[in-house]
Structure formats: structure tokens, C-alpha cells
């Protein structure tokens, strides 16, 4: 099986700072890759370069057989990569349903004629989308699925995380990028969220996930492989148990003894 995502010597510089330093990385289809490393080691930068928010300073990204190194964020989304953000980026004044629909942009019709004149067809599409969104949200939290017309700003942090994950999932991406979904949640809440994500992964089959996470128990439980970054460089790679024993990793996390 060929890898879904493969990066070759991917580099990103901010002035003199090398945030990503010739990173080589591969993710197999249908697997969950954990991306770990101390603060400032380049994990989120990797997501931002991958999704086109920052252009790469060097190197290549291949996705599903095509080169995507220089694509804009809009194009990256369209070929099937969706993400969540470390700091929640929901549109708080909008309803939960509206937020989910932002994530499903590529499956909605946006021409003026359809939206202004063909109101019946529009209402039908809204109805279909509403049912689909409710079904997805129900996997995560059934009561939340009944509150889709409430503003996203009025729900607690854990529900916002769920909505954010659903916003990324609803367009049925091939690759899901989760940037520290546990931020602001308790240990149990995080585990539940992860279990729900795995449930969805099994349902839609071909979903591949890259997960940035500081909670090592989460990494241990759900990832099949880990990549450890430090100062933008890959310092270790392999199953969690193996990586956790690595001397370099211990040093990066705990400092020199």
C-alpha cells in the first residue's frame, strides 16, 4: 500500500528560525499518526504548511499521488484534507448548524441563482444537510445533536471541540488533522472524544488521521505510529512504546539529567 501523505525534506523558516527542518514523514492510509514533541517543536507549523496557510520554504508534499506543496488552503481542503485548530476557531455568533456547514462548503451550491431564486431546492438541500449533520453530531453527543440551532458561543468547551471535529469531518475528508483536541478538556472527556472519532473512522472507512497531542495516554491508546519533533526536526519515529523509550525523546521532554 502506498502512503496517503508523504513529505520530503519539508522546511519552513520564519526569518532566522527554522520551524520545520527537512522533515520526512509518511502516513499510511487508514492509520492514525501521532505527532508529538515539546512546545515550539514545529507540530502546528507542520499543519499550517500542510494546509497551505504558510507556504513551505523548501521540500515537497505529496498527497494521494499528487504534489500539493504550493496549494492554497482552499485547494487543500478541496482535495480532502480538513483540520481542527489548537485554539478553537468556531464562529461563535453563528448557530452550530451554520458552523458545520462552513465545514461542508465544497458540497454546497453557492451560486446566486440557486440561493436567491430556487428557494425550494435550497430548502431541500438545507433539509438534507441538516439531517446529515444531526446524524454525525449524534455519534459524539446525542443531546447536542438536538441543539443545532443554538449559537456556538453558548455551549461548553467540550461541545465546542465536538462541533469543531464534526466541522472537519462533515465534508468526508480523506485526511483529518487534529491539533491538540484535548486542550481545555479533562482526561476523560478527551478519551471519549477520541473514541468517538475512531467510531466515525470505522464508519467511513478510509479516514486517515494525524493527531497532535500532549496527553500521552491518548497517543498510546489510539495511534498506530508516532513521530517526535524537536526544534523542527524529526528525532524519533515508531510505535509509541518504542518511541517513549528513546533516549533522545526523553531528553527533549525532560531535559538532560
Amino acid at each position, binding site marked *: 500500500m502506498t502512503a496517503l501523505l508523504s513529505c520530503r525534506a519539508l522546511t519552513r523558516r520564519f526569518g532566522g528560525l527554522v520551524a520545520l527542518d527537512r522533515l520526512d514523514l509518511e502516513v499510511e492510509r487508514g492509520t492514525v499518526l501521532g505527532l508529538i514533541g515539546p512546545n515550539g517543536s514545529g507540530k502546528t507549523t507542520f499543519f499550517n504548511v500542510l494546509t497551505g496557510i504558510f507556504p513551505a520554504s523548501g521540500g515537497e508534499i505529496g498527497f494521494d499521488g499528487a504534489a500539493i506543496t504550493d496549494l492554497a488552503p482552499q485547494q487543500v481542503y478541496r482535495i480532502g484534507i480538513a483540520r481542527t485548530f489548537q485554539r478553537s476557531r468556531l464562529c461563535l455568533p453563528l448557530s452550530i448548524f451554520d458552523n458545520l456547514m462552513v465545514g461542508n462548503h465544497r458540497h454546497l451550491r453557492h451560486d446566486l441563482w440557486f440561493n436567491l431564486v430556487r428557494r425550494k431546492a*435550497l430548502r431541500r*438541500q438545507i433539509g438534507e444537510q441538516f439531517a446529515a449533520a444531526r446524524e454525525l453530531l449524534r455519534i459524539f453527543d446525542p443531546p447536542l445533536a438536538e441543539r443545532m440551532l443554538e449559537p456556538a458561543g453558548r455551549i461548553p468547551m467540550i461541545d465546542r471541540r465536538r462541533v469543531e471535529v464534526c466541522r472537519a469531518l462533515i465534508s468526508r475528508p480523506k485526511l483529518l488533522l487534529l491539533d491538540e483536541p484535548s486542550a481545555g478538556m479533562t482526561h476523560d472527556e478527551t478519551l471519549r472524544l477520541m473514541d468517538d472519532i475512531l467510531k466515525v473512522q470505522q464508519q467511513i472507512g478510509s479516514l486517515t488521521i494525524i493527531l497532535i497531542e500532549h496527553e500521552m495516554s491518548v497517543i498510546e491508546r489510539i495511534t498506530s505510529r508516532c513521530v517526535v519533533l524537536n526544534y523542527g526536526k524529526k528525532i524519533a519515529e515508531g510505535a509509541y512504546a518504542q518511541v517513549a523509550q528513546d533516549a533522545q525523546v526523553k531528553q527533549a521532554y525532560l531535559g538532560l539529567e
Partner: protein
Amino acid sequence: MKAAAVAAVATAFAWLLLRAESQTSISLLLLLAVAAGVAAARLRFRLSGPSVLAFAAVAVLALLLREDDFSLLLLTRILIVVVACLGLNVQFGYAGVVNFAGASFFGVGGYTAAILAPRLPHLLVLLLGGAAAALVGSILILPVLRTRGHYAALVTIAFALLFRTFLEVNDTLGGPQGLKLPELVIGPFHFNDPVFDASFYLRYVALGLVLAALALGVVQRLERSWIGVALDAVRLDEIAAASFGLSIARWKIAAFTIGNFITGVAGALSAFMIGFIAPNNYAFSESLILVSILLLGGIGNPWGLALASAIVIVLPEKLQTIQEYRFLIFAAVVILILLFRPAGLLPRPLRRLKT
């Protein structure tokens, strides 16, 4: 039922206010309105009903005032300003593109009407006024897209100042003296002929109502559609929107163009009604008034800006004491609103796409 009662009371109130002559009775009526507004806010009074009621109320009001030229003129001015602000609302309220040159696009519509009116059917001229404003806007949008926040606002301010100077020095556009327009004729209707014994302004009120209804229909449909969701997402978080495939530039251009078209049509109708236009009508201060109407009424809520338009136009005409200080007072009111009620008099309600 509740909505119909409110519409009837509002019509009666507007009639009393527009007919009132003495400063004492006007002041009393205004105090009454403020008290009613405060009470409604305290009781969390929510009103919903068909938009038709509001238009019917204005039509009834116009018929009640059928011989009162001045009041009908005010009514038409309000309707035209409502249309212009609906255009700005698409830009500012939905897509978050600030436009401090609203009066300039209003002016592009007006000048287009003045130039084309002798040559083309007037209904077409109204539409072309909007098209011209949209076209001019597509040039201004280029620098606006390259800037953010305050700087984008500055670009539009610069344009507003340039536009007026351009009009003043341009001889083919009449320079500082401006241009005259012929009588508005649409089909069999000659707009400057009296309607039986009643004022000829009744026709303008009717046309204003039609335009306001059309503009409101477009804006409300826009808001309650996938386009509305996309525009809101662009305004609230450009990074998140881009990450989900929304082209920021495309949506800002769309909102700017649609908004300028609507504002331009309003400008064309205004020019026909006044019959004469000059650069002074389109000064930067007029743009500020349009923006302050949005802030006062509640950004994103068409009904809020309708209420604010009525307040901003009627108050200085009826209360002569504030006439001279109106800019001062508006500025103070806008600051107070931003401090104490940032969402405006009638905040925009949550969109519920599925009912």
C-alpha cells in the same frame, strides 16, 4: 396579531409625529417613543410577523398624509436611505467589508441617472445606476482586498474624498453646479404630475416602497442561504474560512458588488426625486451618516437600519433646535451606542436556516 397591532400603533404614531407642528408636542411624542422603546427592551419584547405588514403600514401612512408634500418627501427619503443602507449592510454587516464611501456609490448612481435619463427608458436607468456603482466598486475593491481592518477603511475614506473632488473639477459632470434631471417617467406614470388632488410625491413613495421591498427581499434571502453562511464565516474568521475552502477575495468582491449595486439604484432614484444633483449631496459626511445608521440600528439587521434611518432623517427635520448640531448629536449617539449597546437598537437575530 401582535405584529398587526404594533404596525397600527406605529403608523398612528408616525402620523401624529409628522403632522405635529409645535416643538412641545413633538418633544412629548418623542419622549413617549423613547419610553415605549425602553419598556419594550426591559420586557424583552420580541416581535415577528410578515414583512408585508411593515410595507402596508408605510402605504397607509402615505395615504393619510396624501396632501402633505413635506412629510411625503421625508417618507421617500427614508425609504431611499433604507435601500442604500441595505446595500451597505451586505458589505459591512455580512462580509465585514467596511465601506466609508457609501455616499460616493449613491452618487455614482445619481450621476449615471443624470447622464442617461435623457436618452434611455428610466426604469433601465435606475438599474444602470446600480450597475455603474457596482462597476466603480470593482475598481475600489482591489486596494481594499490588499489591506485589512483600519487600513481598508482608510482606502474607502480616501476614495470618498477623491470622488467628491473629482465631481467638483469635472466640467462634463457640471462641476460644482451639478446636473439637472428630467422628470421621472416609468411606463404611463409621469412622476411629477399630481395624483388626483393628492401630492405627486405619492408616486415616489410607491416606487420607494417597491424598491425597498425588492432590496429587502434580496438581502433577506441572501442572509438565509448558503451565501449568508459563507459571508458570515469570512467576516468572523478568515483563516478558518480559508481552511474550509472559502475564497476570501471572491466573497468580499461578491458582497461589495451586490451592496454597491443596491446603493447605486437608491442613488439613482434619489437623483430623480430631487431633480438636481451636485457634489455637495455626496460629501464624506453623508457616508458617515449611512455608516452611523448601520451602527445605530444594529449591523446585519434590516429592520434595525430601517428604524435608524427613520430616526436619523426625521429627528433633525422635526426638532429644529438640533438641526444645526445634528452631526455633533449623531456622533455622540453613535459613541453611546457602541459603548452601551454595541449590537445596536435592534440586534441581528440568530440565523436559523432550518425552521
